């Protein structure tokens, strides 16, 4: 991965200066997050006295406080269930439909395709009020399973679009081979086509998982009737919604909430960047 200009062999003039300036800029840029880390291991009075100073000693009890205040293990699992259920469903529905629609060329299939991708142009906030009513009618509110299922409808359009675009480039002979071998269409799809769609599947998983893990408004709308907060983002909201914020625990809570996403990012960095670009440029 080298810049196209002036070429991998030589560095531009002043490269060291640019590097240095950007490194300083990056430190300033990330300083708010660095402060979160520093203050997550300080006592409340230390935070009130001076945010910038390093802690006199490590107050790791902030993390155990936040851990139990947020009911972290429970909510981590809940958020993971929602993310996996939502993402898994989107991958399954979008891959099947995107592939199928790329193989049929009738006026009817064109209409179905439009029906499936047009929602990309409908902003969430313009139908959220009625969506709550639909979810209530279907008894999906106040349940993490209901939330996971709701994501299917919201996530499929973009993912279907990506699958459709890629499936068009996979030669149709492969479908015929599977048919001649006597595969039923559904089995042929999962054994022959689905593995071939893998590059899109990676992008689709990345885009949807990051979105669902970090999403706030839909969980707020669907789960707000529950007695306790049910996802990590909602727990963070409750943490800061209090009149007197216990900053030390709140900072630890912030770190506990974002760590899974940061780890996911560091492990899959390459795929995430590629997936996000694919989703943006083609969507």
């Amino acid at each position, binding site marked *: 991965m080298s810049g196209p200009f*002036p*070429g991998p062999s030589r560095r531009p003039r002043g490269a060291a200066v640019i590097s240095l300036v950007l490194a300083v800029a990056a430190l300033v840029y990330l300083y708010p997050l660095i402060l979160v880390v520093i203050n997550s291991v300080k006592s409340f009075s230390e935070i009130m006295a001076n945010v910038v100073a390093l802690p006199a000693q490590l107050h790791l009890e902030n993390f155990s406080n936040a851990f139990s205040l947020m009911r972290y293990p429970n909510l981590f699992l809940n958020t993971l269930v929602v993310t996996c259920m939502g993402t898994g469903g989107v991958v399954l529905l979008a891959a099947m439909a995107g592939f199928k629609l790329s193989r049929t060329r009738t006026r009817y299939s064109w209409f179905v395709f439009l029906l499936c991708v047009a929602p990309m142009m409908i*902003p969430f906030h313009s139908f959220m009020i009625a969506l709550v009513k639909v979810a209530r009618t279907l008894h999906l509110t106040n349940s993490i399973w209901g939330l996971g299922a709701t994501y299917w409808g919201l996530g499929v359009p973009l993912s279907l679009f990506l699958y459709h675009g890629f499936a068009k480039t996979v030669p149709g002979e492969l479908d015929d081979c599977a048919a001649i071998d006597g595969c039923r269409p559904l089995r042929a799809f999962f054994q022959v086509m689905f593995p071939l769609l893998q590059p899109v599947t990676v992008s689709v998983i990345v885009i949807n998982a990051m979105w669902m893990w970090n999403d706030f408004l839909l969980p707020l709308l669907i789960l707000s009737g529950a007695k306790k907060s049910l996802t990590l983002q909602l727990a963070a909201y409750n943490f800061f919604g209090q009149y007197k914020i216990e900053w030390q625990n709140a900072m630890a809570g912030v770190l506990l909430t974002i760590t899974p996403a940061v780890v996911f990012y560091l492990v899959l960095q390459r795929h995430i960047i590629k997936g996000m670009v694919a989703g943006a440029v083609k969507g």
Partner: protein
Amino acid sequence: MTIPAVIAILLFVEIPFLMSVTYSFTRWNGLDKAVKFIGISNYVELLTSDPQLGSAMIFTLAFTVFAVAAINVVALLLAVLLDMNIRGKNVLRAAFYIPNIISLIIIGYVWRFIFSRGFDSFGALTHLGIFQLSWLGDSHLAFVSVLLVTVWQSIGFYMVIYIAGLQTVPREQLEAALMDGTGPVSRFFRITLPLIMPSVTVAVFYSLSNALKTFDVIFSLTFGGPGTATTSIALDIYKTAFSDSRFGYGTAKSVVLFLLILALTVFQLNVFKRREVQA
């Protein structure tokens, strides 16, 4: 094989959307039995006698103009610098991308901490006046704060889009220009920028539609305050429906938001696509 996807989309997007349009002609307090058809009264009210929506409109449009401009200029500048062959560029790219993987609601809270507690400490240390201002309490400064946090959170994403675009620029063209003695600035504006117009179209499209429906950061940073100074249209819709229990009226506002975003993004795509063809 397409049926499950179609059902999911109909159920969770298209039917709710059509219901919104229908409910926008009713008075409805959220309870099922109390839906009353009132024609276009909601639309008349929101166009003629709703100062709250009016100020949300003005805030959202002003915010959008500044956010789109700032995000794209800063992101493109960063992309150009980080597309050069310099030491540590991969680490630097990752660093600028990090805020993008954190949820917007958390971002808002982190910055609330910085603006309140953090700025107190910075002020005590540096005695600079800017740290003693009320960045969330003054309505003009709150606008700047929301803008700053939004730009801070999102430039990583747009930087990546621009880097992907820059990597498609053929090196021969730039080298030919270098031979002709063209300086770096005019090389950028005469060769690079026209060639990456497709990326500009995409990045402006996304920043535009995201700015028009901005919600989460405001929700956690200012909750639309002080007063209604930073209330966006999306937040106004939320408050109308879920705080004031005026669901029918809220859906009318949401239809307006849909039309606004549709009109502006279609217009933007048309204008920018034309530039792409010329390039």
